């Protein structure tokens, strides 16, 4: 039983990372009906920004303030990157066929991956430890401070996001745009601005996930965004794409089931599990757990 709880904790902390990335997918899908393929790569950029920032701050010992600066810095940089991607790649083709939009997204993703290999070098880098670490033993279950940080920070960010979407005017506008873009425009909402804000928010969350994964699994490489992005997207589909609480639920489920499969079966199937879940969801409940089935309209 102790093993089970240990796996559960490990799974929840991995799942929080997926959930943070999945939020970006689901929000962008909500406003643009686009699978933002470059989102996983923004997450990778977040990890690298965190890496370089913490190298820059090195000299003083790992401290909480330093960790906060690294986290916020990475989020800011990636928010700007997200807005740039939207402005120069997606906005010109927003009105074009969906296939065109999808190919553009793939192109942007390839561009970021290959440029990153060029700029950062293709070899993995090792993330320095940001905060003093400690282990806690609760009833035989070992909780590392990294895991607790990951879970706590993700939780705080998700609550903030929830507050932003539900309680602020901009959040209300975002919900309106995702409900119906054209109608929102007719109501006087500056849709361009709202879409840009959506990208900024999603990218900032991905960057936070990047820094958090750097703390937990301190090996980062330019292609790390692909497999994490893929799994996070599966998480978004599992929870119901376009649905914000769904993305969180899906992320936690994917993370937990992945860790359970690795723990109880074999690590070979680590990457296969998310894919298997995706096939099952598509067959049984394509709208996801929390999503509502949409009627096709002409």
């Amino acid at each position, binding site marked *: 039983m102790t093993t089970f709880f240990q796996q559960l904790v490990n799974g929840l902390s991995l799942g929080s990372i997926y959930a943070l990335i999945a939020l970006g997918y689901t929000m962008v899908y909500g406003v643009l*009906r686009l*699978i933002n393929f470059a989102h996983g790569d923004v997450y990778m950029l977040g990890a690298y920004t965190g890496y370089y920032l913490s190298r820059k701050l090195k000299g003083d010992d790992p401290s909480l303030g330093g960790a906060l600066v690294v986290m916020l810095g990475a989020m800011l940089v990636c928010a700007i990157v997200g807005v740039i991607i939207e402005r120069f*790649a997606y906005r*010109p*083709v927003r009105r*074009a*066929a*969906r*296939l*065109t939009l*999808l*190919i*553009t997204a*793939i*192109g*942007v*993703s*390839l*561009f970021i991956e*290959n*440029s990153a*290999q*060029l700029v950062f070098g293709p070899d993995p880098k090792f993330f320095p430890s940001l905060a003093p670490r400690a282990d806690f033993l609760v009833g035989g279950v070992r909780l590392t401070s990294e895991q607790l940080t990951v879970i706590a920070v993700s939780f705080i960010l998700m609550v903030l996001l929830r507050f932003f979407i539900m309680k602020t005017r901009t959040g209300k506008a975002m919900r309106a745009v995702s409900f119906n873009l054209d109608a929102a425009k007719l109501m006087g909402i500056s849709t361009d601005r709202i879409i840009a804000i959506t990208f900024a928010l999603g990218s900032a969350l991905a960057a936070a996930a990047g820094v958090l994964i750097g703390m937990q699994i301190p090996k980062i490489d330019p292609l790390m965004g*692909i*497999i994490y992005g*893929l799994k996070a*997207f*599966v998480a978004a*589909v599992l929870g119901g794409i376009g649905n914000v609480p769904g993305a969180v639920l899906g992320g936690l489920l994917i993370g937990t089931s992945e860790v359970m499969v690795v723990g109880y079966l074999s690590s*070979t199937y680590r*990457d*296969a599990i*998310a*894919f298997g879940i*995706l*096939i099952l969801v*598509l*067959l049984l409940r*394509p709208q996801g757990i929390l999503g509502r089935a949409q009627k*096709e309209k*002409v």
Partner: protein
Amino acid sequence: MKALVRAIAIVVVLILLNALFTGGLIPGFSISPYFLQIMSLAGINIILAVSLNLINGFTGQFSIGHAGFMAIGAYVSAFLSITFGDRIQALISFAPESVQKSGLLLVVLAAGAICAAIAGFLVGVPSLRLRGDYLAIVTLGFGEIIRVFILNIDAVGGARGLGGMPRLANFFWIYLFAAATIAVVTRIVNSSFGRTLIAIREDEIAAEAMGVNTTRHKVISFVVSSAMAGIAGGLFAHYLMYVHTNSFTFIRSFEIIIMIVIGGLGSITGSVLGAVLYITLTEGLRGFAQYRMVLFSLLLVVLMIVRPGGILGHRELRDFFWRRHRVAAPPPPAVSG
């Protein structure tokens, strides 16, 4: 009858070209092995591009896991010819050796194609039932998963790769299958089945309202496309005599997509043009290997913004030369007042 004459003509021309390039036709004249290999690999890319265009360009569904099906074809056929090659050849031991080898190649290619088709069916059925971009993400995931699975099967070499199959494929066979792929896809597209695929691409809801079973058509088109990728994989394995999972990463899938997007989604000659252009450019830019993919990905984005149809768009090359073949331009949208 006309088709038969044309097929025989293609075979004869390919045999002559093969002999010419390898120095068997004119004594003392042959092209360099490097150049011959580039041309042969270009042929394999033509098969991949044209077959992917059937699903991506003509049916309007977006698959990005073509390399996965290619990997299945390559590994299945290579495994067969290594393990059962002698026994299959022994079945037709009365025939001369070259015929035996050709027979073996055809058998293992067929097996690879069938396995790739089955995989295509299993991937296609759940994802093609739905509208939207699910196929893209499922095929991307599938391509990676199949690679991981092969990497963990020790019987096919795992991380060591798989070698030791005979060199059954050559310039002649590759271009014969390239010609066959082009012929089959052209026939499909010009049939009523193909018209239905185009109808699905243009407007899925309207096609469904016309009584088209869209899922069925999409799945068939996807399965055919996967089988052709399997054949390309088998040829690839028996040309290089060695396969490794690193040849079938998603990078390979993206390369094929770049080829068909450059050439024009929904244009067969465009795919051929795209494949040849891509190979020429990558070989020409060999000195800048590290900037190559950055350039291509940038090209993809810019192309989508300024000319989303690619070089040829939906048209074929001959549309530019013979007016009578030109597809009628759609009438200008009516101005409602």
